[in-house]
């Protein structure tokens, strides 16, 4: 009798242990810009990640295990970001999410590569995927995809002959400047003024006055959210006549909210948008708004897609294997039919660059209005 009881207790304990192991969460580390200049993008990204994680956990998790995400703040400072990334990696996460800013990603990616932990970045700088790093994957369209689309549109649809470029002096801005300068030259658009600005710059008066003197057909603005809003307000204040065009960030809802009327009339390329004429994105926007009471930006959509990408591929592999995950990401295409949470058909190439359809939008009465859909670059 005693033997039976002992065996029963041992089996019971074993079952409890197994159950506990089976329910162990899959740890994800989110290293992003929760304060400082990048706070608008970081908080959008974070909120959408939390939403996707909650949805997946409510539906039973991934491979029967819940996802657990830890958010760490880079303070929009690449130096801080490196320390925070190391802290995140010390906790042995399955996947790292973020950062969003290219400058932070550039200093962090060596750490994730060394630790062999796949990293999903929101960074768009062309250099990110030129590091021969098999563990880095974009969620934002890279500059090698967006800038050619922008310049083609300026030349073919807006008949632009002269352009001015306003760029932010960091990795994101420098790569954008180089890509735009090269593409504009190739397409025969004359660059009449190139203005460097600083991250967190507050006074744009001299910059706008220089642009007025240069009299370009279009000003291409390649700065971060808050600086973009300040630039637009200054451009309106100084009555800048040239058309203003941007890429994704310039048309961000946060920029529109901060710039107010000054944002009306600007145009730009959007890699993703809450106003995109895609049913799945519209459903996501409704859920996000119901939960957080504001319109999500492209970073939120990307954050949401990231979690569902992880869910899809991990389920497909059938185990938690970082190396297999990273290998399978290269050349992967996920369609909404495969995984509804991906929202739009998305592909990654051998370098980790992403490819998706994108949009041209105009700000009308404080709202993004999609005026054209551009197909995937490699369709």
């Amino acid at each position, binding site marked *: 009798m005693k033997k039976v009881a002992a065996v029963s207790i041992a089996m019971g304990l074993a079952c409890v242990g197994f159950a506990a192991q089976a329910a162990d969460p899959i740890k994800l580390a989110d290293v992003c810009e*929760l*304060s*400082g200049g990048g*706070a*608008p993008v970081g*908080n959008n990204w974070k909120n959408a990640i939390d939403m996707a994680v909650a949805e997946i956990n409510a539906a039973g998790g991934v491979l029967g295990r819940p996802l657990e995400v830890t958010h760490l703040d880079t303070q929009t400072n690449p130096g801080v970001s490196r320390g925070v990334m190391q802290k995140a990696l010390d906790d042995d996460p399955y996947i790292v999410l973020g950062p969003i800013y290219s400058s932070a990603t550039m200093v962090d990616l060596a750490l994730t590569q060394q630790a062999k932990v796949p990293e999903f970045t929101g960074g768009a700088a062309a250099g990110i995927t030129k590091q021969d790093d098999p563990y880095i994957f974009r969620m934002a369209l890279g500059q090698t995809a967006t800038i050619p689309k922008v310049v083609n549109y300026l030349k073919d649809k807006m008949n632009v002959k002269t352009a001015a470029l306003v760029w932010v*002096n960091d990795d994101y801005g420098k790569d954008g400047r180089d890509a735009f300068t090269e593409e504009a030259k190739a397409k025969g658009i004359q660059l009449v003024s190139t*203005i*460097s*600005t*600083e991250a*967190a710059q*507050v*006074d744009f*008066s*001299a*910059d706008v*006055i*220089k642009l*007025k*003197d240069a009299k370009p057909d279009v000003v291409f603005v390649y700065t971060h959210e*808050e600086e973009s*809003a*300040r630039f637009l*307000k*200054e451009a*309106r*204040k*100084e*009555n800048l006549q040239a058309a203003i065009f941007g890429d994704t960030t310039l048309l961000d809802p*946060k920029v529109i*909210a*901060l710039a*107010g009327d*000054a944002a009306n009339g600007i145009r730009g390329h959007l890699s993703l948008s809450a106003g995109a004429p895609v049913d799945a994105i519209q459903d996501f926007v409704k859920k996000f708004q119901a939960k957080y009471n504001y319109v999500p930006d492209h970073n939120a959509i990307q954050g949401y897609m990231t979690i569902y990408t992880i869910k899809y591929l991990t389920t497909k592999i059938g185990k938690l294997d970082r190396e297999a995950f990273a290998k399978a990401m290269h050349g992967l295409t996920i369609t909404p039919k495969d995984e509804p949470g991906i929202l739009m058909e998305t592909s990654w190439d051998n370098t980790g660059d992403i490819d998706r359809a994108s949009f041209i939008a105009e700000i009308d009465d404080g709202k993004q209005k999609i005026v054209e859909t551009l197909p995937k670059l490699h369709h």
Partner: protein
Amino acid sequence: MAGLLQLLSSGLATGAIYALAATGFTLLWQASATVNFAQGEFVMLPAFFVLASMQLLGLSFGWSIVVGVALSIVVLGLLFKRLLVDPLSRYGFMPLVIATIALGLFIKEAVKTSFSAEALPFPALVPPIPVHMGDVTLSLQDISIFVFAVIAVAALQLFLTRTRTGRTMQATAQNRALAVILGVPVSRMILYTFLLNAALVSLASILVSPIYLAKFSNGESLGLIAFTAAIVGGFNQVRGAILGGFVVGIADNLTAAYISTEYRSALPLVLLIAIILFRPQGLLGRSEERTV
């Protein structure tokens, strides 16, 4: 030429903000030998008082300004003096300097925690309407910032030179011991200086926030530039601080337009070094004398 005039106009508007903050630096130094390294955060905070009045109390923008300025005068004037400056000033210059640096950090973090780390839109007193004058297009917002600041500074100068209280404040600044012997209520005069500084930074905050947006970190660069402007103009003269503000504002714009946008943020420091080397008392400052 049109571009130069626009740069000057815009530089004057920017300089006016620096001048208001720099004047506050000078006032506090003259009255109580306090170098307030939280001055930038003092310029940042009133905008959040106004926003809080609008969001939490549901007041109109006009009434929120009234509440915001009143709160600023109490917090950044009265409480700043009573809770920080008075207890620490007896221990000399350095503890107070360190304390104001700590205060600046505290204000910044408190705003970040209570409001948001993100920039917030702030309503404008004057809409950004362009004003055409021949070939030159100026901004009504720039003109209004300049006019408001000039009125404030002129009123301050009139108060200090033409009223009994103002002259008594000057006497206190020039020779505190003698002022005490003559029966001047020195403590009250010093308090007035702190209240005046709070009023000046409130005005600067309300004027600049529609353009810079309301953000917890706005004080970082403003404080440094205003401090530099005060030294460039003359730390012991209000009119020097005003001149310093305009010089830095205009020079900043001209540098960005004609020399280099990349190195514009270095300009105030270059000016600072040049002034320290060649005219340590500042453009209008005096080597020894102290006046408000």
